[in-house]
């Protein structure tokens, strides 16, 4: 090799020290703990999906995968009732679930298809819509968290090379520093595992990320998310996801069934505390108010919006011909109201030697665009592709060279998406007149610019 000779001499003098002893000591280390090719820390939605996806990858069929989950194995009991925690899965990620065989379990159970997404500004009359009810293209799919995990788990348990251990609390991680070293995982029960690649799918408070010591940019929003399952008084063709951007934060309705929708409302801390204290009837009233209440308008904004609208009509590119309005809420599914804190976070590095971060462990966004879990699934797809390719060229799975491809591809996408979501959030949290003018006209313009709209849909659905 190129630098052969230098090293030849380099060790020539060292030869006498290359004893059996030095080899066997490292050998012993490896034997006392159990070895897996890949260890996944965290068996949530993303962790299970990753295990399942890697298990189904032909190029990795000789790799042994271990998934460690700290909680016990919860059994999913199908019920008529809808859980209050749902996720919106975009078509690209539905395809992933389909490929790993998990989608059929969801399909045979329950899910809702979103054909159209309508976003409205509460302060001006502007709105933007994506997709058509009659179109064959779907915007996204609303699936219960528990059902999704159940579906992925069912498939994961059938994968031959995936092993799962529940109730495993992790004490510490020992990450490799030199080439050839392996990541070591010590559990609280005293057992140890070594692996080529450790994947942190352990959520926003990721211990793996902490062990990596990467920079993590994060802040808490002065916003709290409230979820609930809502009922209408009539059956409707429920395939529209609604979002109204209030100055206190966005309120959104995601379709579940013909007479039920899921509420995701992020609002100020004080307001959320108030909302949580209300009786069910009062809460429903508050939701309806959030969806319908007319805020104080600015004359100038309304005028500008109207004249821009008539200009668009004159130019023969009218926005929406017939306007639709969100359904009226009748009641609340008992006990479905819950609140949770919201935050932003992004790790400057997703990888280092022998370790990678996936999903919320690497990034966390505001739920207003329903992107959090989709970014995570995107990570899963990308890491699966990168690891398959890496092994196919003989790379060890923990090789930074190969993992770098995962990091750069995902950061390119995730950062762009997170900036867009963060920008939207900030843009709509204000009611200062100039900002409202700019965003209203911008929204109107975007709504009629189909190429741009299609681009946004494409971008958000891969």
């Amino acid at each position, binding site marked *: *090799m*190129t*630098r*052969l*000779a*230098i*090293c*030849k*001499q*380099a*060790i*020539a*003098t*060292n*030869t006498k*020290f*290359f*004893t059996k*002893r*030095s*080899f066997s*000591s*490292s*050998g012993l280390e*490896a034997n006392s703990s159990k*070895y897996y090719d890949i260890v996944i820390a965290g068996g949530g939605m993303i962790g299970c999906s990753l295990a399942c996806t890697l298990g189904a990858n*032909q*190029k*990795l*069929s*000789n*790799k042994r995968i271990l998934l460690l989950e700290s909680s016990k194995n919860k059994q999913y009991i199908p019920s008529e009732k809808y859980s209050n925690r749902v996720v919106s899965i975009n078509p690209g990620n539905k395809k992933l679930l389909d490929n790993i065989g998990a989608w059929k379990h969801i399909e045979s159970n329950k899910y809702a298809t979103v054909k159209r997404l309508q976003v409205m500004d509460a302060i001006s009359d502007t709105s933007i819509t994506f997709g058509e009810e009659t179109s064959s293209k779907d915007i996204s799919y609303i699936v219960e968290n528990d059902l999704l995990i159940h579906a992925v788990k069912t498939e994961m348990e059938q994968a031959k090379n995936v092993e799962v251990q529940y109730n495993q609390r992790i004490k510490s991680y020992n990450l490799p520093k*030199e*080439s*050839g*070293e*392996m990541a070591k995982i010590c559990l609280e029960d005293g057992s140890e595992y070594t692996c080529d690649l450790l994947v942190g799918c352990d959520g926003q408070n990721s211990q793996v990320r902490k062990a990596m010591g990467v920079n993590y940019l994060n802040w808490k929003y002065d916003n709290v998310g409230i979820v609930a399952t809502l009922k209408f008084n009539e059956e409707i063709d429920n395939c529209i996801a609604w979002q109204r951007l209030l100055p206190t934060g966005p309120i959104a309705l995601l379709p579940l069934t013909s007479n039920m929708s899921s509420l995701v409302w992020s609002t100020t801390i004080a307001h959320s505390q108030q909302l949580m204290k209300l009786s069910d009837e009062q809460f429903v009233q508050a939701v309806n108010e959030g969806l319908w209440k007319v805020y104080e308008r600015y004359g100038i904004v309304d005028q500008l919006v109207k004249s821009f609208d008539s200009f668009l009509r004159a130019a023969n590119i009218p926005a929406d011909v017939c306007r639709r309005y969100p359904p009226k809420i009748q009641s609340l599914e008992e006990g479905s109201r819950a609140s949770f804190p919201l935050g932003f976070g992004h790790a400057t590095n997703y990888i280092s030697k022998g370790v990678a971060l996936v999903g919320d462990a690497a990034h966390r966004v505001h739920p207003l665009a329903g992107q959090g879990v989709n970014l995570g699934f995107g990570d899963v797809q990308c890491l699966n592709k990168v690891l398959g390719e890496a*092994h*196919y*060229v*003989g*790379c*060890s799975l923990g*090789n*930074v*060279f190969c993992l770098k491809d995962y990091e750069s591809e995902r950061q390119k996408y995730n950062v762009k998406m997170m900036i867009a979501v963060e920008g939207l959030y900030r843009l709509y949290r204000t009611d200062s007149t100039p900002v409202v003018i700019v965003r209203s006209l911008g929204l109107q313009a975007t709504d009629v610019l189909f190429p741009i709209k299609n681009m946004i849909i494409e971008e958000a659905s891969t």
Partner: protein
Amino acid sequence: MAGNLLKGFVRTQNFKCMVKIRLYSSGTSTIDDKEVVHFKKFVSYWWDEFGEFKPLHSMNKIRIPWIRDCILANNEMKDASLPLKGYSVLDVGCGGGILSEPLSRIGADVTGLDANEDLIKAAKAHAELTKANVNYVASSVEDHARENFEKYDAVVSSEVIEHVTQKEEFVKACVECLKPNGSIFFTTISKTKYASFLAIYLGENVIKGIPKGTHHYEKFITPHELQRILEKNNCRTDVVHGTIYNFLTNTWSWWFNSDFTYVLKATKLDKQNC
């Protein structure tokens, strides 16, 4: 033989390298933990993906797929996770095993050959760490050929021949190890002013990505010359393709001409055919 040739190469290393070498061999007399650390340092020196050997590490991204796909070109792949399962490959001049280990990981039955015993020891130590299954042998290719006549499905000699003085003997011995109809792979630097400018002047003096004194223009070989030697040894050259190395991004790519570096693949012909 190759070992002797390489020893000549050692002598030509410049002072900078000598200093570096001392770092790895400084005074120890008994076997203790220090030596283990010491020795680990040496393994990591070869295997640091961003260290001095980084061009060899990044080259894996193109040379492994190329070797893999050439071997599989006329054969069916049975297992995507071990595409080269069932093929025996001889890596001549394997050094620390930067190429041998990945080849073994995709299923090949790899024999890593290097004339330098110490390098072989380091390669073995690393393979033990990574659980790579490579059979490392410390021997010259000439000696190895005597006992392993027509044994391998493929012979690979990557970035080695540009350090060998007696190229005719070297290639002859490589071909002797190869089964009839087997493939032989070379990657090396072409003997052009352009290559000398890039690899020696730019690489060693300006960008300093390659340690000084690594390459010598007079030892470079053009594809035609290599092809001629192979022909003499009953091998038909199938592919010659240029490659180029980007010092700044540390990536290799295929290139339209073979004026800088190139890869060459030849097939050993059956005796009946000639």
